[in-house]
């Protein structure tokens, strides 16, 4: 499902202009990383997509729906949203009931709700804790629980706000695999993250925001290698990009594998000269 942000501006009640004439067109099945420092407008932008905020000017389209014609709960059938703090959602007495809350609200049959719940719990690795009380679990597990609740809603578009915070290496890999899996199912994914290395593993396109504007929008390897631009947005480049630039290598490797590839090609070229 495509998402279109058409010349959107957003001004808070306090008068703060959080977004200034943003244009963003996301095709169905894309995974887009949104980066920028706190206050750049990333969360404001994505909240416009599921209707939690309404644009002051311009329009937002989710598929063929204009968000201003639908409530947030209605848009929830199309857009799943993972908030940064899981403790702002959890209230049920068991993990399973918590995950079932979303799909049940969306009106799926009990059988479908059960199936989607199981599947989501399996994906995040909490199936064996289905009957545990969420507050008996550790914070990083509650974060995975919140992720499962969002996955269980089975929406064509998903927004993730800092999904990797507080996770260890195993947790990050798990989340990356889940995102890759969703991409294979042709879901449209929007990913807000401070961790560009994390983004580099899953996203194909990146958008850089600063001061309510888009500074860059393009293929991830191109955007993440523009260090001056990233510096303008107060974002540090991925680690491999930094290493490549220190060594003055051409190209913009994002992962260790890509780096070694770039390095080896460069070494070969140097040998020949």
């Amino acid at each position, binding site marked *: 499902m495509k998402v279109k942000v058409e010349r959107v501006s957003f001004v808070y009640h306090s008068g703060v202009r959080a977004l200034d004439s943003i244009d963003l067109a996301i095709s169905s099945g894309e995974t887009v990383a949104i980066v920028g420092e706190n206050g750049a407008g990333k969360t404001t932008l994505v909240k416009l997509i599921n209707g939690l905020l309404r644009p002051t000017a311009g329009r937002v389209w989710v598929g063929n729906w204009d968000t201003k014609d639908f409530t947030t709960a209605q848009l*929830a059938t199309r857009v*799943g949203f993972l*908030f940064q*703090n899981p403790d702002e*959602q*959890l209230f049920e007495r068991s993990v399973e009931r918590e995950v079932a809350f979303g799909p049940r609200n*969306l009106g799926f049959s009990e059988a479908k709700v059960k199936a989607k719940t199981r599947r989501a719990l399996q994906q995040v690795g909490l199936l064996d804790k289905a009957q545990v009380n969420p*507050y008996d679990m550790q914070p990083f597990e509650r974060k995975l629980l919140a992720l499962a609740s969002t996955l269980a809603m089975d929406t064509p578009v998903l927004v993730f706000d800092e999904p990797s915070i507080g996770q260890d290496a195993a947790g990050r890999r798990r989340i990356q695999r889940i995102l890759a899996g969703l991409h294979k199912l042709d879901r449209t994914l929007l990913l807000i993250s401070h961790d560009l290395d994390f983004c580099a593993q899953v996203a194909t396109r990146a958008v850089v925001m600063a001061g309510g504007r888009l500074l860059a929008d393009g293929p991830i390897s191109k955007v993440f290698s523009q260090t001056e631009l990233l510096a303008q947005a107060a974002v540090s480049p991925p680690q491999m990009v930094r290493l490549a630039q220190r060594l003055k290598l051409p190209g913009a490797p994002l992962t260790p594998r890509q780096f070694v590839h770039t390095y080896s090609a460069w070494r070969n070229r140097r040998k020949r000269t």
Partner: protein
Amino acid sequence: MRGNLLYLDKESSLHQLHPLSKLAFTFFFLICAAALPGLDWLLAAYFFLLLPLAGWGQVTAPFLRSSWAVITPFVISLSLIQGFFTGGETVLFSLGRFAFTFEGWLAGLTVAARILVALGGALLLTLTTRPDALMQALTQRGLPNSLAYIVLSSIQIFPRFQDRAQLILQAQQARGLETGGNLVRRLKLLVPLSGPLILSSIVDVEERAMALEARGFSRPGRKTSLLVLRDSQAQRLLRFVLLLLGLGLITLRVWTLFQ
């Protein structure tokens, strides 16, 4: 310092008074509100005692704004209720078989004036006294530290509850929760909206208790303070005089009631 305090930071003499002196004024005006015999006395107390004190504290405008903002609905409702339903001789106008009497109206206004004076005393305190200074004055006189902490932290943390409640509402809406609708539907919203608020607050309370321990809050023995509260013989005398006046007013009122 803002936060969400009503306190306004000014360089007035009233601000410099010891918190207990200001608290004494509050109690004095509370007694006035209860014990003064009539509307004229009450209005005199407001305009000739409270207002000048507010002026002395350089908070006249906020004082007036807040008193009238709170008292206006009371004036209207009490006037109507007492005007129509308290007996009297002088009928000003009628609505059907209900007569609005002057005496009734006066009675209503008098009750409203009592509220105004009591409120004025409380406002004077809140506008010119830092809550932590007040709590410190009280703990020095024996108020338990834990009670003082509860008061102070509630002032600061309660607004965060409101922020968090808003975030919770958004999170649950994003999970398909429809808000609005009939009473039954709204009642069903209670659990998914208050649940996370209460549960996450419990987690927070535990962590905050740890933070307090880490700062030695449970340490027995005398605590010192950064804030210096200046008292004086003159103020102690003032508080004593106010106490006497207050007792005197109560005695007078009780005596006239039994006449």
